[in-house]
């Protein structure tokens, strides 16, 4: 198992390398002078020169790359072109809302989706199954921001149960914090629930056709024991996998949700950076979110070894 983990970690290195190379080349290979692209069309020559030196654009390409990688490895993600604040500091200031809704969404989605998918598979072909399937297609199809606005309209404007927008830090009290993350979390959960429920159902359908499930029934076990102990335990691997790959979806969702609910998170930070062409921030955000994605999927790999004794190498 130790060997397996080392292997998975080593396999993550080239993936991050590709991400870094992509991010690096994105700016350099875009037609035109990178400095001009960042500074905009009506920048003065001094501004352009300042950007060139800041990003080291005057050096040969490979020198630029290795200097940049060297800084990254030392934890230096660069400095914002607009505010001159180190990117890492900016992210630190804005990470709380993003983490809050992401974590809340993962918890809520798993709690809702896994039972839904299990019941759908168990009652395969009945109205419950069809209902769950339709729900999951709808969850896939309705854009996050549409869901967000519908929820705002109903629960904040019409019913006045919850605040429309905004964020309060958890440090300022749990009540106001909780009140303000309910709607964003529900909004973001839709698509994640759809994804996980669908996969749970598919995996359970496969597992319920397995011989060992028939064996379990032949032993005279109750249906619930068959479903949970023999069904869900075995369906867990594909479900966890999709929770991992779906994490990319979650990150994209966070960006949009923060815009809808005006949350001062790193998603908002990214969008603002894009609109202002603050390239160091964009670069850092892509690297960070990709690293997060890779890390989450590494955790998923670790989870495999706990769930399935057959995985050893």
């Amino acid at each position, binding site marked *: 198992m130790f*060997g397996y983990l*080392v*292997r998975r970690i080593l396999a993550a290195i080239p993936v991050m390398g590709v991400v870094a190379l992509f991010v690096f080349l994105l700016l350099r290979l875009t037609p035109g002078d990178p400095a001009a692209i960042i500074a905009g069309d009506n920048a003065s020559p001094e501004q352009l020169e300042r950007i060139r030196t800041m990003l080291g654009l005057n050096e040969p390409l490979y020198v630029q790359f290795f200097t940049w990688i060297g800084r990254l490895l030392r934890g230096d993600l660069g400095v914002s072109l607009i505010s001159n604040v180190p990117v890492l500091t900016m992210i630190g200031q804005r990470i709380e809302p993003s983490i809050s809704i992401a974590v809340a969404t993962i918890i809520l989605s798993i709690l809702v989706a896994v039972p839904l998918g299990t019941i759908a598979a168990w009652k395969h*072909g009945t109205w419950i199954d069809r209902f769950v399937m339709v729900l999951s297609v709808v969850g896939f199809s309705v854009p996050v921001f549409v869901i967000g606005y519908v929820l705002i309209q109903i629960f904040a404007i019409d019913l006045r149960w919850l605040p429309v927008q905004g964020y309060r830090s958890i440090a300022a009290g749990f009540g106001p914090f909780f009140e303000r993350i309910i709607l964003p979390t529900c909004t973001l959960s839709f698509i994640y629930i759809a994804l996980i429920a669908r996969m749970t159902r598919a995996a359970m359908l496969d597992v319920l056709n*397995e*011989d*060992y499930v*028939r*064996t*379990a*029934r*032949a*032993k*005279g*076990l*109750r249906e619930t*024991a068959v479903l949970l*102990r*023999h069904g869900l*335990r*075995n369906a867990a691997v594909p479900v966890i996998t999709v929770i991992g790959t779906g994490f990319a979806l979650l990150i994209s969702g966070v960006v949009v949700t923060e815009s809808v609910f005006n949350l001062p998170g790193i998603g908002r930070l990214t969008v603002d950076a894009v609109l202002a062409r603050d390239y160091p921030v964009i670069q850092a955000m892509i690297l960070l979110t990709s690293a997060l994605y890779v890390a989450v999927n590494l955790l998923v790999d670790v989870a495999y070894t706990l*769930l*399935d*004794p*057959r995985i050893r*190498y």
Partner: protein
Amino acid sequence: MNEQATSGSAVLEINDLAVGLGGAARSQRVIDGISLHVRERETLCVVGESGSGKSVTALTVMGLLPKRVLTPVGGSVRLAGEELLSASSKRLRQLRATTMAMIFQEPMTALNPVVPIGRQIDEVLRVHTDLDARARRQRILQMMEQVRLPEIERIFASYPHRLSGGQRQRIMIAMALVLKPKLLIADEPTTALDVTTQKQILTLIRDLQRDHGTAVLFITHDMGVVAEIADRVAVMRNGKLVETGPLDTILRAPTMEYTRNLLSSVPSLVPRPPRPRTDEPVVLEANELGKIYREHSFFGHAREVAAAQDVTLTLRKGRTLGIVGESGSGKSTVARCILRLIDPTSGRVRLAGHEISNLSRRLLRSHRRRIQIIFQDPYRSLNPRITVGETIAEGPVNFGVPHADALAKSRELLELVGLPPDAISRFPHQFSGGQRQRIAIARALALDPDVLVADEAVSALDVSVQAQVLDLLDEIQTRLGVALLFITHDLRVAAQICDDVAVMQHGRVVEHGSAAQVLTSPQQAYTRSLIDAAPGRGWDFANFRPVETAAMS
């Protein structure tokens, strides 16, 4: 075989059972009017080919038919006097494992891969008894000892993937019998196992039955197994009961035509009369052929697995060489090396005088036509999207034959293998397994090969179809003079088609000689144990009598 067969009360009584597709009463019936009974201490073998409904019968008794797909629509099933078809699902749950238990064909998939063995058996006791943890553990270990498992403490804590197929089937038996049920249903429990393991499992079931007085409903397609284990036999076909009677009566004097045919299709273990030796040229020669797989592990050194080692074989025109062995013996590896579907790591292969073991893929192509293969699985060896005619014509077209001529040849070949000429424009899914195997033979013959490799080519077929395909191969060999390399695990098949036999074990040839010599007076212990383990070796099924002892010794 069991002297007490007639005594004892009926544990299972099936009367006029009918099972329909879907739920409607008048739906198509997959089982129609089956009546069977099994008494205490008795083994009833239900024998039949695929599609006969024997497994459905077993699942009906257990109440495990797939819901909404198959439903009992008539008749009665009584277990120790209690009607099962109308029993509540709660009652059925109570009866399972306590009064009736079942073991299945595939030991590799029948155990939950993520739960330790001990806990899987423990579940049975937890659901059906009030024993405390220590007593349960004691009982389980005791049962595991009874099924003759080694190192029971270790296995108790292991996961299924650590165990061999035979060990897993022992676990299944332990699980089924731990509560001493009155009825054990065994659905092809040894079909997926090698013969030597099969023999052990059959003996085990027999012994446990004697100790516990269990009634056994044993489902199989293999007449050899029937002869080993049955007290009485029921023959099924297409969902109907053909006939039923004591073992001896069925084997010696079957009353129904179908049973007679079924029995006479069973190939005899006694080799066919040897054909005269020939001086025909050698068409295939393998010299010290070897295939080593290297597994790269992350830490430590690469592990080497020798799938085949020092294999030397010679095959003359018009002759048949059999390679027999159990699974993992390397017989298929040798075949694939000879065909260069995989590359051997050492040794030489000479095909019609040409060395091909070290040719590049490109140079090899021109030699491909000299050697062709027929695979085991007729459902996967034909491309489902291509018509039969095009499939057969693919080879000749590759070697420059005009398309129209190639198709004309396809038509001739279809006739040769006994299929109607209009098969040419149809797709593989429109044919049965046996017919597809004929198509695969036609494809292999399209290139006029010198050597035909049959890799378990009849193993997936029902015994009656198997006999027909074997006859076809024999006929083709006589007509075309093609040399046949016949890979099989089945000694009976080998005895009927091979001139020479090579026995493989652990990647090496352990014994090599004429079929008559190897199969009747084996020199090696391993060969002897293989022959010993062949089920039903005491019976000459085709002639409805026991094998004369003279032929056996």
